[in-house]
């Protein structure tokens, strides 16, 4: 009886540990190859993963957000402005800025829009992104308007100027690992709160959970992570431009998460890696990719609700060796609701 003492691994989560380890391994890429195509795909993938983490956090509470590009833009422009106008080049300061500025915007906003549920919340987040792009176009004095902000000074980390492709990629790996740690920390620490909101908000509330508070916390952290992704994007292009944050790109981040597997932190990582790679290899960036991603979302939600990771776990449990260690730690889960971690 009573609450079980859990091991540290169980508390942190197997999938969370694997995720951070996998991303840390990515430090090898910039030093293993000089191929600019590989560097570019890896960079895009890391940006996608960081952005998809924020979709993942919101989905923990059964909230679908289209506001990822909006907060990416806020983070990206905050960094670009700090660099261009303020002369700030310190990587630690800029990283903090890219997280904090969108988070500060998200707090009051979340207080307002998180009262909405289901499709209404989805709509408002989409409109939010539309509005933000409009604001960027309409304020050329501040944001450069349709020209964007060009000519940012290179970021400096502990005295080292991050200028060449290899360094930029290594820096992106570092930021993505940090994003994974933040995502893991928040989703594991508030695991019960988020899961209760997802599973039965009414019951959670009647047992005393202050539901809106945890929704705002999730929204704020998700906004901060999007901002970090925006920073990476701006740092890769050395330009902050409104087209980088188009409202329709929000579909991509949702696709990465849902196709990869919305119930595990591994989902956004696997989904982003696969889809960004596919889009580059088959040269289907631009108009076709959204169509393909839309199709993949449809397949994922109708046939394989757990996405790639969820389905893999399900198949492993059904057909894998009976003696194998069960990394899921839950039994009797219905198809499609597979969840990594106890």
């Amino acid at each position: 009886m009573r609450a079980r003492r859990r091991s540290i691994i169980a508390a942190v989560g197997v999938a969370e540990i694997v995720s951070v380890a996998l991303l840390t391994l990515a430090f090898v890429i910039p030093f293993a190859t000089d191929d600019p195509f590989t560097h570019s795909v890896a960079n895009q993938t890391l940006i996608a993963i960081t952005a998809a983490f924020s979709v993942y956090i919101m989905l923990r509470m059964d909230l679908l957000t289209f506001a990822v590009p909006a907060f990416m833009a806020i983070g990206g422009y905050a960094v670009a402005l700090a660099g261009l106008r303020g002369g700030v080049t310190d990587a630690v300061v800029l990283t903090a800025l890219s997280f904090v500025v969108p988070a500060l915007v998200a707090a009051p906003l979340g207080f307002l829009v998180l009262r909405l549920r289901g499709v209404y919340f989805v709509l408002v987040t989409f409109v939010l992104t539309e509005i933000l792009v409009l604001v960027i176009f309409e304020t050329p004095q501040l944001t450069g308007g349709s020209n964007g902000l060009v000519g940012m000074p290179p970021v400096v980390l502990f005295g080292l100027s991050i200028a060449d492709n290899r360094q930029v990629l290594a820096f992106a790996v570092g930021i993505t690992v940090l994003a994974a740690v933040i995502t893991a920390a928040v989703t594991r620490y508030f695991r019960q709160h988020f899961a209760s909101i997802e599973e039965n908000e009414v019951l959670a509330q009647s047992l005393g959970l202050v539901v809106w508070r945890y929704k705002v916390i999730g929204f704020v952290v998700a906004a901060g992570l999007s901002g970090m992704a925006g920073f990476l994007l701006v740092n890769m292009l050395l330009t902050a431009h409104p087209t980088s944050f188009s409202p329709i790109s929000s579909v991509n981040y949702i696709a990465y998460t849902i196709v990869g597997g919305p119930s595990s932190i591994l989902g956004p990582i696997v989904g982003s890696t696969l889809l960004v790679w596919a889009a580059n290899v088959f040269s289907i960036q631009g108009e076709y990719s959204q169509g393909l991603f839309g199709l993949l979302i449809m397949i994922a939600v109708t046939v394989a609700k757990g996405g790639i990771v969820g389905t893999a776990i399900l198949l492993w449990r059904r057909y894998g060796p009976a003696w194998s260690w069960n990394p899921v730690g839950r039994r009797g889960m219905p198809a499609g609701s597979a969840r990594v971690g106890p």
Partner: protein
Amino acid sequence: MTQAAIPAGAQAGELRVENVTKRFGGLKVFENLSFTLAPGDILGVIGPNGAGKTTLINVICGKLAPTSGRIVLGGRDVTGKPVHTLSRMGLVRSFQQTNTFRPASVRENISRAIRFSGGSDESWDRIEELLRRFELSLRLDDQSDKLPYGLQKMLGLLLAYVTSPRVLLLDEPAAGLEGRERTRVDDFVQHARSTLGCGVLIVEHDMDLIRRLCPCIMVLDAGRIIAEGAPADVLSRKDVIDAYVGATDEVAP
């Protein structure tokens, strides 16, 4: 019925409903309802379907705001406070349907209820007895929605209990249960009353259960209290029987 002494320190748990009216647009659900539920009291609320019983619970627990009137808990006006605040103050409800965190285990369900209500690990000791009586002790690791219906309802009651409420609002706790399971509701209510000293308001259609449990009942019909008093007296009144005719045949004088 044994009326064990209620623990001291329960005085702050008096619930007063004062002239409460609830309308949805032009539809009047009930008007000028007033009653008091003292700590340790068990009040049965009966009435035909649509009489406003569940809406009454929704208004008391803060899910719906009353159109007019006041809800007073322990001398404090709590009208219009949100559900989670009232829950933290000790006003906790159960639900008519089975209501658990479905994919989570029984243990996880209870652990969440303890955490959300600001309880500690000691809360587990207090429910050991109930877990044993409901035969849930050995099913702590079962997924909650895989439990039989009756046990899911009992788990719902347990979740409310483990938050240490001062007032329990039970919405048809026996609905859908078979005979043997229904006595568990009796057990639960008596246990909650004697260990927590809480007041209990029960909305129920099972007249036998109401007779066994409630020294005092209130009959709601079309948003009015048409009768109040001891079950034996109230249930033999002609207007009460009339209100129930066609609705249920469970009322036998």
